[in-house]
């Protein structure tokens, strides 16, 4: 039972995954990726999408940051903060589990 659910807090070790009732889906009509959740449709931007795609419950946040730093050629620290803030927000909206 999740009756005593606690707020998940982002840490380098957390291995985020999409909540089981959340679906990432390509929409051919709008030619964009959509996140489908209860009563909600969200349109993540390219970076958001890259983060969400790695939310498989196996990859740790530090690994996600490392991968994105390579891909975006960015500053590790900056990406670290961005990914952390993004995932905390999505966890707080019960879309991602940490």
């Amino acid at each position, binding site marked *: *039972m*999740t*009756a005593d*659910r*606690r*707020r*998940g807090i982002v840490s380098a070790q957390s291995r985020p995954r999409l*909540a*089981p*009732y959340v*679906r990432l*889906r390509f*929409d051919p*009509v*709008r030619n964009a990726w*959509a996140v*489908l*959740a*209860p*009563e*909600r*449709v969200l349109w993540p931007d390219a970076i958001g999408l890259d983060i969400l795609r790695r939310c498989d419950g196996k990859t740790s946040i530090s690994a996600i940051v490392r991968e994105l730093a390579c891909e975006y050629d960015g500053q590790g620290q900056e990406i670290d903060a961005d990914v952390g803030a993004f995932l905390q927000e999505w*966890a*707080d*909206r*019960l879309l991602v589990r940490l």
Partner: protein
Amino acid sequence: MTQAPFPPIAMLAELTHRCPLQCPYCSNPIDLLKADREMETERWLDVFEQVAAMGVLQVHLSGGEPTLRRDLEQFVSTLSQTGVYTNLITAGVGLAGIRLEALASAGLDHVQVSFQGANAETTARIGRHSGAHAQKLAAARHARALGLALTINAPIHRHNIAEIPDYIDLALSLGAERLEIANVQYAGWALLNRRYLLPDGASIEHQVATVEAARARLVGVLEIDFVVADHFATYPKPCMGGWGRDAFVIAPDGLVLPCHAAMTIPSLRFERFGSRPLADIWRDSPAFNAFRGTDWMLEPCRSCERRDVDWGGCRCQALALAGDAAAADPVCVRSPLHARMAMLLEETLPPSDARTGGDLIPPFAFRRIGRT
């Protein structure tokens, strides 16, 4: 309308008007349709195939009570095969057990169970169904066990507004992700019973404080969706996210509507599903274009900076209270008729008469088919 509208994102399928409950605030029309007016299985399946192709991403399966349709599993399965997200809007009576299992394996994503009260007694009194509460609890628990997303829906009026803290506890104890605290919208049966339903101002203020505190306390634990009471608002809500903008409704008999109360606007004529492709109805039916965008607006909306935030509010409320469906929704402080909202409040009962706890049943017109 100068440019073609965007495709709709969501669709509300009112599969039936039948329901085992008789809530006096039901948003269904007063003239409820009998079962023999409902579209057949094949037609609804055609609807769902067409909406998926149009770009609809979410379908709300609603009613009445949608689970009274024996073909609901087929609808869910057709939708989920095309990747559409399915929300079941149910009163939860007779749902737990093999029925919910069948719906889950057909691909259902999300169940929203309405609770007429936070306890068995209020639920029975408001919904006029004595065993309903226990069945709702069972449905919610089973949805949870099946891994479906769960929302508890709390339709709020003066007879349960004191139960908000209990609703929050209920949602937490059931492990729901979402709690919808939705002040009743005064259309349909709610409009008929408004005098007995509208809460008093002090209770509303208290409610806002309670909800805000709970939201802050429960970040990341429970999402609380709060639909504020229109009669105490400063600006109106963007009804349906704007007329003909994101979403539309199909009634049990196949009428294609911009919002579920649109039939109260007698100047509009609605098309029936099957007369031509749904995408064409969405794009150029006169009823959809009547209030689409901002071109139709009158002052004060026409020159208002919020015109594409709230789209002038609810057209049905504008007609009901201002006598013109193109007027600003009188909920808005900028409407010259805003004072009428205050008058409506005066005609409601004082708080001392509310007697929320006792067994007093106000002279509600309980919802039933063939009442008029």
